[in-house]
């Protein structure tokens, strides 16, 4: 690994931007207008892009070096644990960093137009910059713990940005939901880290205390350590499997997979650039990145791989069905994102890491393009998001229309766009997979059906939005957006196209795709980069390719038939024919409601019960292992009122009664006192006699 300190520039430049616009943005905006804020907070991400590109070039120029490293200082060193504050750039993270800074910078530019005249302009850019910082930390982190910093950091920024327009409580709630659901995933991440730490030895092992051995959680170190610990089990489960599944729980949270996907549709409450950047292009792919990063772990456990692949495939199909009946354009895109993430997980789940990464990369461009196109439409529609109320915008917004069209081509897997190649690679790899707990054709079938549905709902959104009678808003036709917006759309669309050249399949070229070769150093040590024998089965591959083009075409055809120009009555009739089914899908299978009833409400109930228990029982009981409550109570009438309804306990009464009784004996009458004297003596005598009898003195 080569030391390259300037790696730190990549995350720190956006952080500087976040600090500047966070601390001074408000005044800058007041004084000099939005432009001043924009210069700072859009300029710095571009610089970061420059730095990332420079670093990547540097990495590539040093042929035999697999990674660049940059160590700042020792972060935590306790016992056998030694974690450095260190960045690490190999080809995977380099690709991620360049993609993130590029798409991120583009979206920053776009946001200048989108957030115009918003009083929180500076705040928005501060959060966005902060997000870039966190995301770059995530991908460049040299060890798991630092990755976790970025992992939670992006979650925080996502929370801040979803609830950006916090005055509407709905947005705030969506933000909170995202954070809490992600936190459940983080719980999995944390648990995974604990299992790994335990399983890989650290300084504590079954053999006993072994001082002086350092365990860094470093990605460079982990594979070596894992090879020694692959046989260990915890709770009867092998360590790699347990850790893999737990990390995947974390990935599910961040990348919105079943069962933790529920936050992502709600997250569309944020401004559209946020949806594009965070909830489509970058943050949500962090889970995929994590699995790819930990490839050595998953390769050691077919079970964990199966879990990843199956959950991915199921999500891909499941989300696609919901996407078909949504009317909010952003919701459609959100479910599409969930579905596409499922594809990526299948890719990394079956061990074809490069395919997953490739789809991640292409998806970043075309999905960002789709979202930003949708944003452009939404702006034009004055923040109307319901596709039922749109129509015919293609005529007035040509730029937006054609970029959206091209992105649709890409996502639906029609040839001539990058999506076709990346998706087909995943389908092909899934079909070929062997040795997992499920047959490859089954995964393929799920994805194949998903592809058809994808094509249908994406084109549905296209036709509903851009074809038909042009709508009027307040009596005026919507207008095309300014170049700052359309230009970004164009660049992204071009990106979505150009990227196909790095992924031309082996079946066409006879050589492994360029992207696979590029990532080969990262994944080679796993020994399972390819699951099928090279040079074989190209015929089948071509056949499957044809099939997926066909299913995409069918989806397109149906959408065209149903929705083009809004002239068809078929959708209505279908809806009438299957009302229940339609309700079920439109209401998203009632998953949110189920979670609410099964998890959220019980938790709140439990908390209320705990609180009641605390103030009534524990306080009541402990307070008095004694009559504290009661005795205090009578010190102050007001307290009495408060505590009387507390748990009444016998001891409390006893002490109080004893006090009163001791007082009552003091009658003021002398003969009673004298009787007390006599009685006391007699009692003492009896006591002594008893003791003597009992103890045998």
């Amino acid at each position, binding site marked *: 690994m080569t030391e390259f300190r300037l790696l730190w520039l990549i995350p720190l430049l956006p952080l500087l931007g976040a600090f500047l616009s966070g601390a001074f943005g408000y005044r800058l905006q007041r004084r000099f207008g939005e432009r001043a804020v924009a210069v700072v907070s859009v300029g710095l991400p571009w610089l970061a892009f420059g730095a990332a590109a420079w670093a990547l070039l540097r990495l590539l120029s040093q042929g035999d070096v697999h990674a660049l490293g940059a160590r700042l200082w020792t972060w935590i060193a306790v016992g056998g*644990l030694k974690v450095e504050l260190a960045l690490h750039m190999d080809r995977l993270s380099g690709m991620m960093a360049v993609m993130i800074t590029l798409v991120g910078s583009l979206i920053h530019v776009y946001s200048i137009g989108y957030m115009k005249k918003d009083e929180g302009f500076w705040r928005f850019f501060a959060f966005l910059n902060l997000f870039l910082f966190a995301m770059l930390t995530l991908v460049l982190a040299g060890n798991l713990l630092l990755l976790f910093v970025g992992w939670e950091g992006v979650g925080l920024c996502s929370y801040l940005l979803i609830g950006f327009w*916090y005055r509407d409580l709905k947005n705030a709630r969506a933000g909170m939901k995202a954070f809490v659901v992600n936190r459940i995933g983080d719980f999995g991440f944390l*648990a995974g880290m604990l299992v790994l730490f*335990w399983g890989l030895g650290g300084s504590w092992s079954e053999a006993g205390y072994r001082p002086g051995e350092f365990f860094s959680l470093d990605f460079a170190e982990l594979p070596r350590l894992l090879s020694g610990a692959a046989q260990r089990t915890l709770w009867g489960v092998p360590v790699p499997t347990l850790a893999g599944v737990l990390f995947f729980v974390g990935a599910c949270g961040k990348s919105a997979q079943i069962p933790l996907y529920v936050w992502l549709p709600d997250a569309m409450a944020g401004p559209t650039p946020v949806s594009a950047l965070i909830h489509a292009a970058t943050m949500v792919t962090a889970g995929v990145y994590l699995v790819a990063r930990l490839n050595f772990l998953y390769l050691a456990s077919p079970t964990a791989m199966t879990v990843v692949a199956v959950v991915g495939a199921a999500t891909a199909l499941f989300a696609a069905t919901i996407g078909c009946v949504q009317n909010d354009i952003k919701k459609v895109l959100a479910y599409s994102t969930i579905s596409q993430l499922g594809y990526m997980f299948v890719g990394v789940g079956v061990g074809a890491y490069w395919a997953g990464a490739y789809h991640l990369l292409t998806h970043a461009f075309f999905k960002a393009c789709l979202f930003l196109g949708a944003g452009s439409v939404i702006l034009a529609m004055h923040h109307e998001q319901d596709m039922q109320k749109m129509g015919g915008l293609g005529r007035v917004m040509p730029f937006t229309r054609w970029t959206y069209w091209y992105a649709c081509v890409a996502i639906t897997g029609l040839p001539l766009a990058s999506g076709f190649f990346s998706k087909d690679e995943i389908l092909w790899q899934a079909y070929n997979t062997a040795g997992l707990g499920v047959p490859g054709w089954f995964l393929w079938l799920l994805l194949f059906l998903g592809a058809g549905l994808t094509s249908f709902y994406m084109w549905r959104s296209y036709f509903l939005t851009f074809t038909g009678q042009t709508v009027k808003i307040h009596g005026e036709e919507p207008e095309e957006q300014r170049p700052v917006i359309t230009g970004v759309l164009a660049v992204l669309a071009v990106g979505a196209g150009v990227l196909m050249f790095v992924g031309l399949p082996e079946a066409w070229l006879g050589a492994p795709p360029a992207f696979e070769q590029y990532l080969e150093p990262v994944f080679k040590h796993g020994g399972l980069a390819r699951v099928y024998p090279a040079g074989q089965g190209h015929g089948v591959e071509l056949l499957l390719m044809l099939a997926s083009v066909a299913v995409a075409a069918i989806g397109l055809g149906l959408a065209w038939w149903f929705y083009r120009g809004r002239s068809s009555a078929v959708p209505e009739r279908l809806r009438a024919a299957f009302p229940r089914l339609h309700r079920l899908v439109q209401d998203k299978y009632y998953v949110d409601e189920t979670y609410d009833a099964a998890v959220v409400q019980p938790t709140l109930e*439990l908390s209320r019960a705990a609180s009641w228990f605390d103030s009534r029982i524990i306080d009541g*009981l402990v307070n008095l292992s004694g009559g504290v409550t009661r005795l205090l109570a009578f010190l102050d009438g007001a*307290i009495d009122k408060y505590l009387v309804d507390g748990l009444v306990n016998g001891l409390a009464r006893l002490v109080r009664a004893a006090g009163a009784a001791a007082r009552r004996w003091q009658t003021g009458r002398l003969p009673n006192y004298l009787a007390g004297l006599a009685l006391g003596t007699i009692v003492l005598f009896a006591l002594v006699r008893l003791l003597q009898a009992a103890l045998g003195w």
Partner: protein
Amino acid sequence: MEHPTTSTLLTWIIFTPSIGLLLIGLLLLTRPLTQLTQATLDHLSRAIGVFFSAVPLVLGGLLWASFDGRATGMQLVHHTVWMRAFNIEYFVGVDGLSVGLVLLTVLVSFVAALASLPWGIARDDHHHFSRRAVPGYMAMLLLLETGMLGVFCALDFFLFYVFWEVMLLPMYFLIGIWGGPRREYAAIKFFLYTLVGSVLMLLAMIALYFASDPGALGQAAFTLADGSTGKHTFNLLNLAELGRQGAFGAAGPILGVAFPRIVFVALFIAFAIKIPMVPFHTWLPDAHVEAPTPVSVILAGILLKMGIYGILRVNYPILPQATLWAREAIAVFGAVNMVYAAFVCLAQKDLKKLIAYSSVSHMGFCLLGMAALTPQGINGAVLQMINHGIISPALFLIAGVIYDRAHHREIERFGGLARRMPEYTALVGLSFMASLGLPGLNGFISEALTFLGAFPVFTVLTIVSAVSVVITAAYYLWTIQRMFLGPLNEKYASLSDLNWRERLTLYPLGALMLLLGVLPMPVISLMDPTLRALIEPLARSAGL
């Protein structure tokens, strides 16, 4: 035995606040002569209060500079005979366990003194705590500081106990006189709970004293400060040495229970009340809700640390066998603290009460971490004390900010405050995030260390307690949502953002949260050698 460095620095740090206390007393006594007006007297008292809590802060810097983090023994000790009668010594010193807490104490006390100034409080608000009986208030604050510092520095059990009790009264008055509506109840509850603990400690202390037989070790280890040897000893280091050699195991059982165990339990309950550990925690919410802001700051920032500190200083080294016997129970208590209190938090309606319960939850980390007897666990536990000592004062200051303005703290009754108080909202966000353990901020380091350390030993328990991480996020975010987001409650449309006093107190704490999040090693390296020396013999006999 290596010779510890001697110095009177600690004595100066401990008793500097008392000088301020005496000065205030002098001012009050000579008032018939000097004829000072009430206003002048108040101003002078405030100046004395701030100055004499600033001096220990400066001296604390000196302490940090002169402390050698690589050594495991006591440093900067000051050692003289106090009372020959029971071989009681004046013996103070710091090691890695206490130095961080001493530094924390001087910092938080200074912040509390600043937070007691009436800047920014409406002029006509004569009932605000910062305007009521100022000399007495400042005197109590200074006395409290002396007590706290003394507890962390004392190396003689008797001295420890005296300082421990010295804290009791100022706290009682600070809550009882300057507190909220139900202050009397809260004050007396605090008083009684703590007293129950301390009398148990007293018994245990005397029992240990008589069980200690210095003759069992060579004379060298047991000479008093003046060179003579005693029959029994209160010296914590000597007691620890005896404990290491298993001397207390030989003492006869009490009421049928083995001596070390019953003493351990008595001490543990005494300290657990202070932590506070479920189910001995119910004094805390009341005390916090009623206490004025700076007192809450001290209570949460420092007083809660004394329980854990006491266990680590007394129980662990002196009664190692009993510690091993009890560690599973301690871990279970820790997990219960974390999860149970987190659930209780979720149902709270009063901001301060919520923060108080969150403190209970966060102190559970310490219990879990130290029960594990792993380097990560113990470091995590002690670091958690320091981190919580930075975060929770900020949280209580935050609660004070809103209470000063709105005169209530009911979360539900606010809404949309972010629009009116952006700076405040940002600091609340930062502190909440630090408290819920967001990576990159200080709370995360200690939580992660605790979990990493505890997991190898208590796998299931650690996973269960990690659930609190989720709940914690939920209650904090829900609080933010209810208070700061959504439409602005028009009733509070005129609230002002932070004033300078609040900035002065909150920003340093916020900066520390960030700094210790990325650079915790200066703190960890201060304590790591000591803590490892503390647990290594225990871990070895536990077969870990």
